[in-house]
């Protein structure tokens, strides 16, 4: 029983450990000291409340993005558009944050969050409907939507919604009534994200709705036989996925950046895929995975200053960890694990038009 419970954790932990070891070797090869690098990461990410808060702030949108990807994967869908959905959520909530100044905080903040959720859900809904009714693969639709949404938000932030009298393209700062504060040194957004991880876990693993999604994801023919609406589950999962990504964007604007600024959230949606995989599509496991990646991201400046390492080394380590999780065979071979110890392999997508 004991080892059984540990098994699902074994693979990701081993993957990260092996990736760190390979990372250390690369650092050495680059002529820097792995010890200095590790110290820099530790100092930057975890020493003192400010460092921890910064790490958790970095982890927050990643957590939402990871959850967004997981909801899709459970229903057999690959929402590669979390990035775009997160961006629209970020910009619309920021817009509501400065445009609707004057509302009481109890109304303003929830309203901004809701707007972020809705605007993230909409593009995903479109992808879901196209998939369910016309069989258009969601990967293609969401990739195209990403391009559209990235450029749309860039244009809005540098045009109609741009802060006046500023050389950089960004929206005005949001009003205090829409800002998410810190509670006991912890960013509220992070707490919300953690709570959401538990909500998503409950919905996916404990409710009939989650069972429907999972059945469609695992065997759509059996779902059809069992009278589950495959189209309905597809649309619902996609929309929910987009809503989570949109909420992630809103939390970032309202709780961390304080406005929308293009470039701030580049790649977050794609990191969500990394995190979902690292967490092996388990909502609760997204929390440590996001904190880990958040810590690495938060320490990239320190890495440069203290260990004189290019911040890209962080991406290299992450990519290796991801490769090891996605291809457990490599890890099994490296660690001589028996096949049984890595059951529950993650299958992310079933390929084109499946």
């Amino acid at each position, binding site marked *: 029983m004991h080892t059984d419970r540990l098994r699902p954790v074994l693979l990701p932990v081993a993957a990260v450990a092996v990736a760190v070891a390979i990372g250390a070797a690369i650092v050495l090869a680059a002529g820097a000291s792995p010890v200095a690098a590790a110290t820099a990461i530790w100092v930057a990410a975890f020493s003192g409340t400010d460092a921890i808060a910064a790490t958790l702030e970095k982890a927050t949108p990643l957590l939402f993005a990871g959850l967004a990807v997981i909801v899709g994967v459970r229903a057999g869908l690959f929402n590669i558009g979390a990035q775009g959905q997160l961006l629209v959520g970020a910009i619309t909530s920021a817009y509501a944050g400065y445009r609707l100044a004057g509302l009481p905080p109890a109304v303003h903040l929830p309203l901004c969050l809701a707007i972020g959720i809705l605007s993230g859900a909409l593009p995903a809904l479109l992808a879901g409907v196209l998939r369910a009714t016309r069989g258009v693969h969601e990967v293609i639709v969401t990739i195209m939507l990403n391009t559209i949404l990235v450029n749309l938000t860039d244009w809005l932030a540098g045009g109609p919604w741009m802060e006046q009298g500023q050389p950089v393209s960004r929206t005005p700062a949001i009003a205090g009534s829409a800002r998410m504060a810190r509670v006991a040194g912890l960013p509220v957004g992070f707490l919300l994200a953690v709570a959401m991880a538990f909500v998503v876990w409950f919905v996916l693993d404990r409710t009939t709705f989650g069972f429907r999604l999972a059945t469609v994801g695992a065997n759509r023919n059996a779902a059809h*036989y069992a009278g589950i609406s495959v189209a309905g589950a597809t649309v619902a999962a996609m929309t929910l996925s987009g809503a989570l990504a949109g909420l992630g964007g809103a939390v970032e604007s309202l709780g961390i950046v304080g406005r929308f600024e293009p470039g701030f959230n580049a790649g977050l949606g794609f990191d969500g895929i990394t995190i979902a995989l690292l967490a092996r599509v388990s909502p609760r496991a997204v929390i440590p995975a996001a904190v880990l990646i958040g810590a690495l991201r938060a320490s990239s400046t320190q890495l440069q200053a203290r260990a004189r390492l290019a911040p890209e080394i962080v991406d290299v380590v992450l990519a290796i960890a991801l490769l090891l999780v996605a291809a457990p065979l490599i890890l099994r071979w490296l660690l001589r694990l028996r096949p049984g110890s890595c059951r529950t392999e993650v299958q992310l997508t079933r390929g084109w038009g499946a």
Partner: protein
Amino acid sequence: MSGRREGDAGAPLLEARGLTKRFGSVVANEDVSLQLRRGEVLGLLGENGAGKSTLVKMLFGLHRPDSGEIRVGGEVVRLRSPRDAIGMGIGMVHQHFQLVPVMTVAENVVLGAEPTRHRFVDRRRAAAEVQELSERFGLAVDPDAVVEDLPIGAQQRVEIIKALYRGAEILILDEPSAVLTPEETDELLRVVAELAAGGVGIVFITHKLREVMDAADRVVVLRDGRVVGEVAPGDTDEAGLAALMVGRSVVLRIDKQPARPGGTVLEIRGLEVDDDRGRRAVQGFDLEVRAGEIVGVAGVQGNGQRELAEAICGMRPRSGGCVLLREHDVTRLGARAIHDLGVAHIPEDRNKHGLVGSYSVADDLVLNRFDEPGFARWGRRERAAVRRWAEQLIIEFDVRTPGVEAPADSLSGGNQQKLIVARELSRESVLVVAAQPTRGVDVGSIEFIHRQLVAARDRGAAVLVISAELEELLAVSDRIAVMRSGCVAAMFDAGSVTSEAIGLVMGGAAGH
């Protein structure tokens, strides 16, 4: 191809001596010995889980025995991989074909051992060699046909040619008839006889008694991983083989009381249904099934049986006609609504429709009932209640599983089928639609499933059994409808009809 290996001329082609294989604490094979001679068909008979697969996997280099030895032509060999086995002239046709669907027959056959010309694949020679093999052994296939366009029976012949092309003198056929229609099975048995006449030694794995009686020169029976008997078909009969295989006497023909039919439950009038490609598969189909009777639907596969079952159960849109359930028109209802009206459905393809392989036995036992009161409350699944229900069902329906939390795909085919039967028949239903209810299931489980269908009938349900096995229909049905070209060609009283009479109508002799 022959005489490639020097060996003791009198030695058997293939011999296993005292093979033992354990998986953890489970003994899959214990002290198994057998011999295969040139030109002989050796039937390997056993229930699901008896250890047939493990045995042949050792003979084909997929598993390594813990102890014991394998001899080819009298010499001890070590088979580390299928490559070694192929090198020793052993070929295997797996239950699930290992073919590339988009490639031609010839390309599939030569794949991995291509004849080349100037470093390019010599397609012409490949096709010629395939043609030659197919003619020599009477294996009719077109070398230039694309595999995915071929019927299953022809794909199997491609697999056989593939093995022969690699010089196989020993051919292992793993449950070759499990996927075939009766006609295709007859064709296969003919091919097997021809191969044996040509000097090939064949290990024919099956749990179908009729086939070993027809095709085998000798039968080795496995039970619980051990050889429990070796007989010549001439010295025994089907009942004797079944008893050997199951370890107790098996009733091949179940006793049942005469049907006492009540009111009409299912009434189908002029039903029209399209298949996946949009062609009309069921047309002008009329049938009535009354409470307390079992109506069997016989027919050559592909005459609309699958579409009929799916249409009745709401999984497939109906293009015309009507389906009445206790006088209510259900023609337009979906799968869920029809299920809720008390229709149980054992689907034809258990892995495609019947269950989710990655789900636990418990979850699959409520696959179409997961949100009913008792299994869920306010949208939250009552997992403890589901587990308790499952614990009860696996005992009641004798589903052999390590536990209700084990994934369904870890069960043997027969137990997966019993799982589905348990789910569908554990609920009071007015109509039971059972499509191929015992396909790929061993004798012991067949008997059990048949009893369950009769029990459902005796509880007052109307039962519709659609099957490609005439024996099965004759065993369980009260009336038998023969389906041909999408409609009922003839209706028989099961008590007074012979399989020959049904077979004639299936083939198109009477009716119309």
